[in-house]
């Protein structure tokens, strides 16, 4: 029995004598942890030693138990202290050591981009949604009725000419004079009014087509149509809606001016100009009070309902906002262009 006792005492003596050196010699956290494990880990010397405690004679157990615990606690205390010291040293080294080369290229997650036209379109949609308007759309190829007749264009109106409007070929290969690529998003007005009862407030962004192709015209471009129909809607409301919308769009209170103009489906009709504080007047688009003939065509009572409509070019707004010099650049899809905004 005394062998066991002796072995235990010797072992404990040895651990007690060496642990400081073992733990203090570790230069970093992993080696400290490894050293610690050699002492008090599952296979550590002290751990193994303690498994021998049951063979120690009963009268010495209490005494040696207390001593063992004291060593164990001392090891833990030293380990914790060393750990803290190493962490502090590492922190200190990082904070005072060599700096990063911040000029190395970044590793980019590289998000993509929305097209500038889409960005403007979404901005417009957000503003109008916040004002209580719904977003609507409609087909890009539509009927002559929806594009012209129901909007009050007289038959054979110059705008309906083959010169200005793309018509499609019918199944027989001949021109179908009743089916065309919509020349404006005002078709959305007709479609919305035809399927819904007033009151209604909608805006319709979309692609439109005209037979124009030169330095400043693209045969395909984008418009946004707006329509509000209710009882007692006045031109003052139209001006107010435009003022609020344009102010929100530009992010500051803008001045709005209506100038008389002519569109068959509104009367009185106007051009909308806007001016930012200290800026120049900009042409925004066309607008006016919905013409009674339009209401008659969609089955609304023009004596009961009044409304306003407006339309504006999205491409032009994108060009102004993003400094695009040429409308064609919007449709060339040059990746350098697409990644710029």
């Amino acid at each position, binding site marked *: 029995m005394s062998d066991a006792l002796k072995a235990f005492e010797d072992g404990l003596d040895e651990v007690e004598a060496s642990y400081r050196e073992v733990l203090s010699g570790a230069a970093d956290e992993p080696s400290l942890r490894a050293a610690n494990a050699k002492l008090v880990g599952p296979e550590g010397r002290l751990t193994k030693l303690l498994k021998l405690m049951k063979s120690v004679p009963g009268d010495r157990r209490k005494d040696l138990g207390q001593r063992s615990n004291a060593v164990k606690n001392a090891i833990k205390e030293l380990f914790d202290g060393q750990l803290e010291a190493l962490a502090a040293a590492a922190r200190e080294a990082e904070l005072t050591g060599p700096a990063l080369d911040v000029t190395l*290229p970044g*590793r*980019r*997650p590289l998000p*993509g*981009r*929305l097209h500038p036209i*889409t960005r403007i379109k*979404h901005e417009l949609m957000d503003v109008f949604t916040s004002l*209580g*308007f*719904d*977003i*609507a759309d409609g*087909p*890009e*190829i*539509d*009927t002559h009725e929806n594009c012209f007749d129901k909007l009050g264009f*007289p038959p*054979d109106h*110059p705008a309906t000419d*083959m010169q200005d409007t*793309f*018509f*499609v*070929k019918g199944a027989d290969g*001949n021109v*179908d004079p009743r*089916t065309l690529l919509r020349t404006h998003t005002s078709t959305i007005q007709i479609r919305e009014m035809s399927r819904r009862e007033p009151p209604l*407030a909608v805006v319709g962004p979309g*692609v439109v*087509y005209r037979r124009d*192709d030169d330095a400043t015209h693209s*045969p395909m471009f984008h418009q946004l149509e707006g329509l*509000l129909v*209710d009882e007692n809607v*006045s*031109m*003052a*409301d139209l*001006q*107010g809606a435009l*003022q*609020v919308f344009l102010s929100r769009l530009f992010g500051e209170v803008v001045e*709005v001016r209506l100038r*008389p103009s*002519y569109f068959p489906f509104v*009367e*009185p009709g106007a051009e909308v100009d806007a001016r930012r504080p200290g800026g120049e007047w900009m042409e925004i688009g066309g607008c006016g009070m919905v*013409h*009674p003939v339009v209401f008659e065509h969609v089955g609304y009572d023009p004596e009961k309902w*009044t409304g306003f409509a407006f339309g504006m070019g999205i491409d032009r707004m994108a060009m102004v906002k993003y400094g695009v010099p040429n409308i064609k650049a919007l*449709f060339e*899809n*040059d*990746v*350098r262009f*697409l*990644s710029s905004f």
Partner: protein
Amino acid sequence: MRASYEWLKELTGIGASPEEMAEKLTAVGLEVEAIHRFPAPEKVVVAEVRAIRPHPKRDKLRLVTLFDGSAEDEIVCGAPNVPDPGGRVLFAQLGAALPTEEGAPFVISERAIGGGPSRGMICSESELGIGAGGEGIFVFGATNAPTPGTPLADALPVGDAVFEIGLTPNRPDCLGHLGSARDLCAIYGVPFAPPTPPAPPLRAEGAVPPSDARVALGWAEGGREVALEDDAGGGGGGGGERRRAGGGRERRRQRRERRRGARGLWRGRRVLHGRRVGGGRLRERGARGESEEEREEVRLATAGETLETLDGETRELTPDDLLICDGEGPVALAGVMGGANSEIEDATRHVAIECAYFDPRSVRRTSRRTGLHTDASHRFERGVDPNAVPAVLARAAQLMAELGGGVALAEALDVVAQPHEAPRITLRRDRLDALLGYAVPKDVPARVLAALGATLVSEDDAAVTVTAPSWRPDLSREVDLIEEVARIHGYEHVPTAVPRVRPSATGTAPRIRFERALREQAAAAGLFEAVSYSFVSPAELRAARAPLDTVALANPLSEERSVMRTSLLPGLVAAARQALRRQAPEALLFELGRVFAPTGDRLPEEQPRLGLLLAGRTGGWIGAERERDFYDLKGFLEAVLAPGGLVPTLKAGAPDAPWLHPKRQATVQLAGRVVGTAGELHPEVADAFELEGVRLQYADLDVTALFAAFEAAGVPQAPALARFPAVTRDVAMLVDDGLEAGAVAASLAEAGGALVEDVALFDLYRGDNVPEGRKSLAFRVTYRDADGTLTDKRVDKAHAKVRKAAESALGATLR
């Protein structure tokens, strides 16, 4: 439309500056888009020709001795129309700065011409920038010419401003000066008094026109040369030589006309038809309006009838075309173009002047059918004033007599289909105020409408009733009057109110919001949005192996844009090709747009589709560079669709996508629905787009099907989050190369039973130590028990089943 400031000033008596006048016109809807000015250059004076002698060396030059008020000098001149001694011309002295089209002035300096010095230049109107006068120098008339030395600014009424008015089609009355002048007077509140020449007595003779029309015919007899050119605008260019008229008044008119860009004297009066009565025909048949040949007939053409128009084309007519005929047959396509037989020539001495109103729709149809858009049709199809016909006829004859030195004959014919009935319109004051949003002062409506030429029928507290003026075909109902009152009273009176918007219960359709979300997700995932033209060429669609049953344009601008696209591929490939040619490292593109398919019904089917296209190389400054491949595309697809809570499944093969590589193609499914295809582009398709050897990854998704899948799946629901830890075990194996990794993973998951949470591939290897026809796959299997902490024993048991299944069911060799 161009309008002369001086002329408007004369007609209205309003002395405002050109800028103010332009602002006022713009404010009532006659938008002045530009003001052109013709200032008189300095150092240009009137000079008298004293002598002319041939140039000693050059045939085409002459030496002209000029007296400029202070001295005589000999000038070299190449103009053909230098007047005889005594004639007066405009002379640019040394140092005169003449305007040029380029902007920088042309400064007169001493130059050697034909071997001798020349100090100054005899000028034409266009050289002086004061008109668009024809060939040759400007020569003053024989009488009343200013004395030599008079500066140009004093010698001629130059310095006019010309307004470029963007006229809207509802205002045909403003195609002449009278309309804009009348609006100006209404704005300024001054009376408008247009010149009213005495109308000749009209005899109602001739056949009544078959459709709504009115035609009057008068005659002028030329005393000297008659200064007219052909009438219909489409004719052979410059027309006849114009005579320089004598008096200042005529000169002024000519100059105004030229500055407006009009080509001849009569362009301001397109309703006129000057007829050739060459060869003395009219005289032979009695010039005084008495013989039976002076019939006027307006009739519809008969099928197969032809008419040679002024432009020299022989036109086949239809029974829808209206003709003006004299005793011998048709002389004009009514309101569109005159007949070649009515052209005025140098020798013309007698002119029949026809003034007419035609039904705008009839003119529009003929103009459209013949493709003739002339100055005449432009006016007639917008509507001229039917009641003005006799007065305009008289005015034309008067001017012709004054300017051409001729005599207007006293009688005229007039045929009217139906007298114009002015619409009677009532304007309700409450309606006016309600529509404009402010209380219009009581006196305004009647005052404005009267100023615009309406006749007041009645007025009380509730309403104003008027008849519309015959020159305003755009006024037919109440709202037209409301616009007139608003326009002249001023839109600036309209206040700004905040509209009441009653929001709908349903809001924006989910389909529309979905398209927006898709775009935003695609951009967030790292793709760049393209917007391409919707029209493409059939050749591009063939190259893209896209459907060729297309919606074709009847009147495309070019073959390149002649059919509506049936695929987004041509646009995206073009963008990628452009990017690679410009040495961009890669192109990561998407487009969300519609493709079109014929349906047999009137409207084609428009299908929104989402196209994803990847090309080029990926890699940064750390990590290997490599060409974008199929798995990049799959990753992007997952990234684009993931925010909706659904993960797409790819099934090998896409039989309906012939544009894809036969061995690198997949059908994309979402929540069990087929939503599109994805794969590498077929190398022959890449070749067809001149991208030989480039691998392009392309996914084509049906947005409607995507939307349906997301709608069916509903909103992602919060999952029960695991409370107990997971245990992972790896398994590596050799399997046949043809075995899909997805199938292996599914088998492993099934074999592992309920404890398997996930089976994820983490390594794929072919090559050394792997036999030919086999591949090495390594999976990490995640085990978890939702109800408690797993013991090693349970995991070992489950994993043993997984390993066993790999060997027995998949023929794998475990490693």
